[in-house]
């Protein structure tokens, strides 16, 4: 058995798990945080994305034990209290989701790409950056639009802060 100690959405968690437990299983089954999804078994769909120490990783291709010592943020921990993250808001405002299953991964991927590449992203960049996220409902059109809107909004916020 592996001893897993980490924080999830700011809360310290300590648990004994089977060594082969995947991080996504730990999050969903042990912690009951079911917003993180599993959409494939070859680490390509991105429904399982979480932020590990600030970076978007695939929790279906990472053992819980590997993540021990890290800080994990799941879709449930993205908003600040009742205040939605700008990316969450942009997905709603731009109809960037339909069935909602890929959405948590898309939101995490968007946050990661905006934080890494800076705000105000162009369409080719967004499309390329979504290589690891599959959506079957939206045709990506409105996801791209949502991420672009969020990135512009975050650029405006940064300008305002300066």
């Amino acid at each position, binding site marked *: 058995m592996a001893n897993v100690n980490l924080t999830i959405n700011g809360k310290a968690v300590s648990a004994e798990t089977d060594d082969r437990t995947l991080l996504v299983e730990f999050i969903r089954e042990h912690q009951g945080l079911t917003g993180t999804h599993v959409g494939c078994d070859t680490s390509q769909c991105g429904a399982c994305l979480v932020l590990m120490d600030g970076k978007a990783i695939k929790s279906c291709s990472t053992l819980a034990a590997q993540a021990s010592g890290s800080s994990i943020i799941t879709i449930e921990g993205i908003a600040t209290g009742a205040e*939605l993250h700008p990316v969450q808001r942009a997905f709603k405002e731009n109809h960037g989701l339909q069935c*909602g299953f890929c959405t948590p991964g898309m939101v995490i991927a968007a946050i990661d790409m905006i934080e890494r590449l800076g705000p105000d992203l162009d369409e080719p960049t967004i499309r390329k950056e979504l290589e690891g996220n599959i959506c079957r409902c939206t045709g990506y059109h409105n996801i791209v639009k949502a991420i672009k809107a969020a990135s512009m909004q975050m650029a405006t916020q940064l300008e305002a802060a300066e």
Partner: protein
Amino acid sequence: MKAEGIGARVLRKEDNRFISGKGNYTDDVVLPRMGHAAFVRSPHAHAKVLGVNAEAALAMPGVDAVLTGHQLVADGIGNIICGWLVHSKDGSPMNMGAWRALEPEHVRFVGQAIAVVIADTPQQAKDAAAVVDVTYEELPAVVDSLAALATEAPQLHEEAPRNTSFDWELGEEQQVADAFANAAHITKLDLTNNRLVPNPMEPRAALADYNSAEEHYTLYTTSQNPHVARLVLSAFYNVAPEHKLRVIAPDVGGGFGSKIYIYPEEIVCLWASKKVGRPVKWNCDRTEAFLTDAHGRDHHSHAELAMDADNRITALRVETTANLGAYMSLFSSAVPTYLYATLLSGQYDIPAIYANVKAVYTNTTPVDAYRGAGRPEATYLVETIVDKAARELGLDPADFRSHNFIRSFPHQTPVIMNYDAGDYDATLSAAKQAANYADFATRKAEAAARGKLRGIGLSCYIEACGIAPSQAVGSLGAGVGLWESAEVRVNPVGTIEVLTGSHSHGQGHETTFAQLVAERFGLPTDNVTIVHGDTDKVQFGMGTYGSRSGAVGMSALAKALDKVEVKAKRIAAHLLEADEADITIEDGELKIVGTDKKLSFTDVSLAAYMAHNLPEGMEPGLKEGAFYDPQNFTFPAGTHVCEVEIDPATGKVEIVQFVAADDFGQIINPMIVEGQVHGGLVQGIGQALLENAAYDADGQLLSASYMDYTMPRADNVPSFKLETNSTLCPSNPLGMKGCGEAGAIGAPPAVMNAISDALGGVEVSMPATPEKVWRLAQAALPKQAAE
């Protein structure tokens, strides 16, 4: 337009939970003492099962039980049904081979379930399933439908000689033959509609809970139509009578047809839950989904089109072989017949059409309805042969189409359908304008200067949605009615619950159905909750497929709202001492026309429940239900224009522009409709460029994961230009037609015609993979250079 009424771009009510990780999908549901199921599946495409030895598996940690097909059959669980009876042209009924939820003797496709292991954890169940020892006698397999028709082909079912379920026809063969005899020009075409795997992002799942004290079952499952699931589980699979079975389809992560059917796994979980005395959950992994979710399409066709000297189409003749897979799934017989051949007239005035369809068993995953279901196959055929004919006749493909358009409605086609309304010129010209069709030559020349081959392609599609009326489809062999129900419950405080038999798995019903209420009563959509997906809450319904929820489901809601409106007005008239005819409802208030006398909606609903002062003889309460059975199909139509650039060195196709101009009738929420179109287009583009379920000769699925099945990703597709040009549907109260499948129906031929155009008019098969296109480009280049 009212702020949240018909036509408003209201943001979706359901989004808040999905963007916050608060959705509730089947695999998120956890019950106390829940066990987990893992299936033992055939690794062979065709084999006799000689024995199942579960000894080692039963000794594994956490294992409760290993259940097999013999036990299932002994317990009286019924065979899986096909819900639409099709007759061959000789009058004989289709030939169905028995499909058992767990197969005891004879497996016919890779992935077919043989046994199930129930254990404490999913891992333990999978560990044990891996050591269940099944002895097989392998048999030769056949995967291609044309090969399966050959006399020497391996035979799948005793009941189906020459692997043929039915040999069906539609239309007047002699009339067509006469037209061909008099034709000035005949265009011939062979084409294949490639097999697809639906791939909703949420894999299927089931959680069954048997309560022995009540002899009652609850099934949580990923269903597009929980009531149909309950009916079939009860009436045919003998799991439990309907009143002892509750089916809940909570949030469902996409369906596209693949979640219509009642699969072996759901049946087995219900049965196993009683056997082992605990709730049983099964969650499909993606590889299992590839092997067991009903696939789509897979047709081989030969078509011939006859034209007169004036370039008018006079007849169409089609021979199609449809691959059923190893068994007949729920609507598998309807898809290549009544949902396919009935659309072969397209948008064209074709006096004579004859279609012959052979449905054939092969050692592959069963095939059934997938987004569009039959209509994409018809559209691909019609729009490919029309394009080819235009090329052969030296005509502009848009002009040739327009020359043959239907312009007078209603229009009776030779293949059952009676088109009620449309304006095909309007969508064609809107699409041409948005695509700057006239100036294409300039763009082609500019691309050529960059070393790219540029092409433009059209598709003028028609589809039929809201399959109905029930009596008509019943006469054609449907095993169910195809109406919908709705119930409107006004609460004493004036908030409203709408119960609908439609089911949303991404379509946004919680918003659009609420908009209909907002339109009617002027209430904010926040005051309306849409309830669906639970057979204990909604009395009955047919679910969501075939783009029917708007045209059929919302029509039922409109009828129920009519009844609520009448009663509310009666109460208001009584309280205001006015004539009923003088009461109007606006902005959440019931007013006497031309006065300032009014009551709020809450006043009226409260009065209905207080019942202190109601009109003489009126029952208390404000709750009404309605069933709506459509009078006709609806006929969405439109034109798609695709423009591609091909890199001749690699064969890679890039879609540089895509325009869709659609006629969906009345649109409730343009934002949601656009989203439906975007998604459909990408599934259509996926079929044209990327997706293919490829089997090897032994029946192994080679593309059984995202490593080999090319799912469209964000960088494969462009942003889209959409236009809508509506004619109202005359047969339903809202004038709605349906929009869910249009993209998947219209896009493939537009893409393929564009590629063909870029390559100088050669025929290209789907999917147009880089290698295929590269080979054609190599052949086309010297020719184009010489021109």
